[in-house]
């Protein structure tokens, strides 16, 4: 049995124009200790997937309309609020995109980590504090004992993200969801954070769900990847297979968009590739048609009439009428 099994997940958002699925029939599974990347443009439902896994779909605008999320065989969609609170931060935890604003400014970093330990592990004040100093040390914060008494605004972005990681891993969760953990950081710091995440996640045996639009990060960090488009799965497979032989035109486009540093600057240096068009508005999500059809150069009549079925080709799963 897989650690996490998401089946036919459908999350709907209520807007003024009606109710539309931001996540439309999404299924995937995650094995223990495996690293999965969710890739796609902004507004493709990556973050919403993460929130759905945490049971944090914004209420009452959004709701999980169907499907199941099985964690160790337990359906999280049906779980009670109290049960979800016990799971959040303990079995499944999450780090956010913005380390600058994700820590509470009125508590010291040590207090914030200790708080999680006291809540989930039932540790005493002193034990939790000692433990949080150890965690700060583990995420590579120098002089952790002093640093535990410092307020978030006295730290740099990279250090704050380390604190967030310490907080998320405090209870040794089974799954860590990282929602664009390095987007707001300098490139040099990004590499440090990825190294740290990889080390810790190996040491703690945590499975990682990495949400990103950085193909470099995917190759660095993940075993499997899912490319999402307009709330649907466009392609899924092992990272090297998908990167080397992308089957979906959207995946091909995403990979082609990555600029190559090694190209020499010449007169005829090719312009950067871009995928024409934009993600369709939410009001078109859920149509029984291919939502990528306007941006693809290989679409046929069928793309307008019917939602592409997910087919397995080799190790990859792809949802495109044009794939063979």
């Amino acid at each position: 049995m897989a650690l996490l099994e998401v089946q036919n997940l459908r999350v709907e958002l209520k807007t003024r124009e009606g109710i539309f699925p931001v996540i439309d029939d999404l299924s995937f599974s995650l094995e223990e200790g495996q690293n999965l990347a969710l890739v796609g443009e902004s507004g493709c439902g990556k973050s919403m997937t993460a929130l759905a896994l945490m049971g944090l779909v914004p209420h009452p605008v959004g709701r999980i309309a169907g499907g199941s999320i099985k964690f160790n065989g337990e359906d999280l969609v049906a779980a009670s609020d109290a049960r979800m609170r016990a799971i959040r931060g303990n079995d499944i935890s999450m780090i956010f995109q913005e380390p600058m604003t994700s820590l509470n400014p009125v508590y010291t970093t040590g207090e914030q980590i200790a708080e999680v330990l006291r809540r989930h592990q039932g540790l005493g004040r002193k034990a939790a504090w000692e433990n949080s100093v150890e965690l700060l040390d583990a995420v590579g914060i120098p002089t952790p004992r002093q640093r535990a008494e410092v307020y978030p605004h006295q730290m740099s972005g990279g250090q704050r993200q380390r604190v967030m990681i310490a907080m998320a891993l405090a209870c040794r969760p089974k799954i860590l969801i990282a929602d664009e953990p390095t987007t707001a950081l300098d490139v040099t710091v990004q590499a440090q954070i990825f190294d740290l995440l990889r080390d810790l996640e190996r040491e703690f045996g945590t499975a990682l769900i990495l949400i990103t639009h950085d193909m470099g990060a995917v190759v660095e960090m993940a075993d499997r990847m899912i490319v999402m488009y307009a709330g649907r799965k466009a392609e899924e497979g092992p990272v090297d297979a998908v990167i080397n032989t992308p089957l979906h035109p959207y995946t091909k486009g995403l990979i082609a968009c990555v600029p190559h540093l090694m190209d020499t600057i010449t007169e005829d240096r090719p312009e950067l590739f871009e995928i024409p068009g934009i993600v369709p508005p939410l009001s078109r999500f859920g149509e029984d048609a291919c939502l990528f059809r306007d941006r693809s150069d290989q679409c046929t009549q069928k793309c307008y009439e019917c939602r592409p079925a997910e087919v397995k080709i080799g190790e990859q799963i792809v949802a495109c009428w044009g794939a063979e």
Partner: protein
Amino acid sequence: MTDQTQPAPKARSPLAETAEMFLKNHAAVVASIVLIAIIIAAIIGPPLYADDPFEMVWAPFSPPGEEGFILGTDYLGRDMLSMILSGARVSLAIGVTAAFVSVFIGITIGALAGFYRGWVEEVLMRFTEFFQVLPTLLFSMVIVALFGASLVTVTVAIGVVSWTAVARITRAEFLRIRELEYVMASRAAGAGNMKLMFAVILPNALPPIIVQAALMVGTAILFEAGLAFLGLTDPNVISWGQIIGSNREAILSEPFAVTIPGVAIFITVLAISLVGDGLNDALNPKLRAR
């Protein structure tokens, strides 16, 4: 922005930073010294100063300075200084307690409305607006008239009519803060609603509430003076407003008898307002240099 390799800076709590900012505001510092002097006088004055404020010691309306009565005597010939000192206790106590009552009611209602949104917010905010449109003086007079003129009723009456501002400020702050990432992060770490409301959001919403509470102490003192002037106060204690009220017949012939308690109220309320202003500057993150 600090560097990874830089030694850890000294931990400075938000409290220390606020204190530093407050000390830069000279008016507020002077005002807090005055306020502290008033509080000390209220605490140690009555036991140190021998005269009983209720005892008639001399001829009525003897002007300040005469026969050793520094502030003169009132319409019954009672020592004014003694009355001012024991009145300070009552006025300050009512001011602080009433402010506390209104902050308690205001935070509870504002927090629930701002956190839960939806119908909870609708109901609570309509309820708040109902209290807002009531004529406050009249409403508190009704409360005091109904439940009898005691210190407790007067305090509760003032608290009950003045919590609406706190509720609206609290709600506004909650609406802003609940959308911030660290609230979502706390939720993702497993915090429940009560925890989020009172341990995560409220400490961040406190600065404007503290300022409002400080200003409310001054308003409450004024309010009590107004009620006492109209005779709606506990006859067994002396408050500044009551001194003014009881001497109002002689407002033209012996102006000092109403001026002295009036000045006491004025100085106290002004000092409290200036301190509140200083707190506002010190607690407002936009004015704070980082």
